[in-house]
């Protein structure tokens, strides 16, 4: 299996190379440039020209690309035009936030989605089934940011039981070690800080988790429905196996394969959902920063962040592939 993983990782190199070319061209084909974003309504043509010259935006594209790649190969992703900090550092400081948020969203989506889908299938055609189908349809059709707004309005403003924004109340003055705030609170023994950080994760986590939740419910339901009528299940029943064993070993386990694929894909897609959710909840992760970079045409950040996200996406998919063989020993990663 190690060889397969190695091969898959090696394939990542040409993929990323292609992506870097496309990204580079796309970002630069956007109208205008960072100079106007930087200078605002004060911009005189001379100032814009000066900025472009200093930043090297006036050089031929090919030359700009080689300069960029040259640095990239040395691990230099450039500096954010907006913040003046290295892109790598910007990513690293915000990444834990988005991971924390995604984990909460995923726990919610998986923890609720699989049982709900499974129960819907078991009670096929009954009220629970119809209810879960309608719920998942709503989950898929409502835009994330709208849901985020609703959650925030209801549970942070109308009935203020949860914090409306941010990752942690700055008044708490928490110690940060890993930048995973909940973990930090546990590690340092500042449990109030951990609890506060966790509370800040609930609303955005639920909002972000809704779409994967809805999809997981549907896939689980469909998959369980298919498996529970399979020949081997009938055989197992005929053999007189206990219903509990049949459900767990024969139905659920076999039904999990497509669900795991879905979870893998949805995990990657969480990042795009995070762009909106994080903005609504003023949650300082890579999503909200990416949104800002798009508005202000921060070339280096756009390029760097999208490459990082692509790597992440590829890695998640690799993990999903590997996990197949754990769930279903007949599947061998090839």
């Amino acid at each position, binding site marked *: 299996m190690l060889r397969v993983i190695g091969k898959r990782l090696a394939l990542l190199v040409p993929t990323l190379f292609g992506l870097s070319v496309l990204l580079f061209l796309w970002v630069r084909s956007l109208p*205008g440039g960072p100079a106007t974003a930087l200078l605002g309504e004060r911009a005189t043509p001379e100032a814009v020209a000066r900025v472009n010259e200093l930043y090297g935006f006036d050089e031929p594209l090919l030359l700009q690309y080689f300069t960029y790649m040259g640095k990239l190969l040395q691990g230099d992703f450039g500096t*954010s035009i907006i913040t003046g900090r290295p892109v790598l550092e910007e990513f690293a400081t915000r990444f834990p936030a988005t991971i924390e948020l995604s984990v909460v969203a995923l726990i919610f989506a*998986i923890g609720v989605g699989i049982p709900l889908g499974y129960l819907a299938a078991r009670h096929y055609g009954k009220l629970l089934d119809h209810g879960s189908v309608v719920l998942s349809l709503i989950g898929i059709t409502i835009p994330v940011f709208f849901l985020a707004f609703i959650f925030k309005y209801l549970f942070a403003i109308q009935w203020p039981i949860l914090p409306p924004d941010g990752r942690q109340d*700055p*008044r708490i003055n928490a110690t940060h070690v890993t930048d995973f705030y909940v973990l930090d609170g546990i590690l340092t023994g500042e449990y109030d800080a951990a609890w506060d950080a966790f509370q800040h994760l609930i609303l955005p986590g639920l909002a972000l988790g809704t779409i994967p939740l809805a999809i997981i419910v549907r896939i689980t339901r469909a998959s369980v429905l298919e498996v529970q009528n399979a020949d081997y299940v009938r055989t197992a029943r005929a053999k007189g196996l206990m219903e509990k064993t049949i459900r767990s070993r024969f139905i659920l386990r076999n039904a999990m394969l497509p669900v795991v694929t879905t979870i893998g894909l949805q995990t990657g897609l969480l990042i795009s959902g995070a762009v909106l959710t994080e903005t609504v909840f003023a949650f300082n992760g890579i999503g909200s920063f990416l949104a800002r970079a798009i508005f202000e045409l921060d070339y280096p950040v756009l390029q760097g962040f999208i490459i990082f996200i692509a790597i992440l996406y590829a890695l998640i998919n690799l993990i999903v592939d590997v996990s197949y063989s754990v769930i279903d020993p007949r599947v061998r990663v090839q």
Partner: protein
Amino acid sequence: MFTSKTARGTLPTRKRAAAITAGAAISALLLSGCVQSQREEDGGAAAEGEVDSTFVFAASSDPASLDPAFASDGESFRVSRQIFEGLVGVEPGTADPAPLLAESWETSEDGLSTTFALKEGVTFHDGTEFNAEAVCFNFDRWYNFTGLAQAPSVSYYYNNLFRGFADSPDAAVYESCEVNGDLEATVTLAKPFAGFIPALSLPAFAMQSPTALQEFNADDIGGSSEAPQLSEYAQGHPVGTGPFKFDSWNVGADLTVSANEEYWGEQGDVQTVIFRIIDDPQARTQALQAGTIDGFDLVSPADIPVLEEEGFMIVPRDPFTILYLGINHAVEELSDPLVRQAIHHAIDKQALIDQTLPEGTQLATQFIPDVVDGYNEDVTTYEYDPERAKELLAEAGYPDGFEVQFNYPTDVSRPYMPTPEQVFTNLSAQLGEVGITVTPAPDVWTPDYLDRIQGTENHGIHLLGWTGDYNDTDNFIGVFFGQEKPEFGFDNPELFTALSEARGMTDREEQTSTYEEINEQIAQFNPAIPLAHPAPSLAFAPRVDSYPASPVNDEVFNMIELNE
């Protein structure tokens, strides 16, 4: 989550999962306490007063830089104003210069050299003494910027106001700084610059600790040629003489400053200020409603009545802004002065203000607000008179009106224009009344809109404006009408010369009366329509009693009064 257990609990991998969970829990317990909590024990400054002395203010973005010399944005300056002070301050509530770190100054007759008498007994937060040497160190530092530090986007204000550096002395306004004694320094300029003293009230020219600047390589902003990188100083070591000291900056989340116990002036109710970064305007309003912040700036006009009703305090600033309807003279119809007069008469500015702009907005008769020098009380005005507008159009040869492109930006809120779409709709209807049909041409603010207005001829009438930096007339009308620009597309050498001469005047009084004349000259030429001076507002939690609102945003938080 309860449900995950029912799903996973019966899997054969149960034991493994249980082992992993237990392992994780045990290691978390073992680890907990391994890492030292760096939390300061309470009981310090915060517990002393009767009020909660921590003040949380929502900022719309991170500061671009903690080094104000390399910043030009409002959020950087908001933070700078807490940490730093300049030689010259601002008279509270006005835009006029006032003594700060310099107790007084005297300018030579030729206007070229100014001698500053410095305040005694002031030290920087790092213990460095504030004296004439520190003053000259700062002036020389700016003058000797090299490479990327000279980029207009980096040292914006020095570039614009002092125009040149040590390696381009012909262009430079600054010449030298001389230490005359511990508490006296003389700054000599190479060229007259009447706005020199008011300019020094800008945070960009605040006094910074020479020791810290050197220790943390403040000028080392090279990084890469693609984008300049903040220096170590600008990222986390700003040292000034102000009422607050820099504490920490959690980029993208919050920035904290705390009271400078050695401060020479008054220390107020606020001992710690936390600037929380919330970039979505809606989210700032909601944060105030939810009680997670104490205040924020640039309240959307639509939210003002709602917040007031809920018991929040709205503080409008005196306007230091101008919103105007730009006119592109390159368009045939618009080059006709009669048509421009007709447009002016067609607009009911008061109705526009009442319907689309925040409370406190003043009607504009010229392109500077009344707190700026050179404001002309008796300037020619064009009253709202749709009949007169129709007559003028007929006289100009357009009895049935004409069609014109109306450019406006979307999804943007500027201090002088909170909701451009509403202003557009309102003005379109007004112009329609007199027969001018507008073709809507919306664009996103950057880069499309600004590029189109400032870089091309492809626009008709448009919305734009300005927020002033300090009491400098040239900063308004000089920027707008000082030279031929694609934005307006006219060539008026007489006006250009007048503005250029006024800029070079050394005598402030003479300059002021010249600007009054120029404002009249502009009113008669009528190159564009000054609409309003919108007043930006701040909103605060009920526990805030007063806030030192300033037209030029010179707001230092030690002046905030709290009641709980």
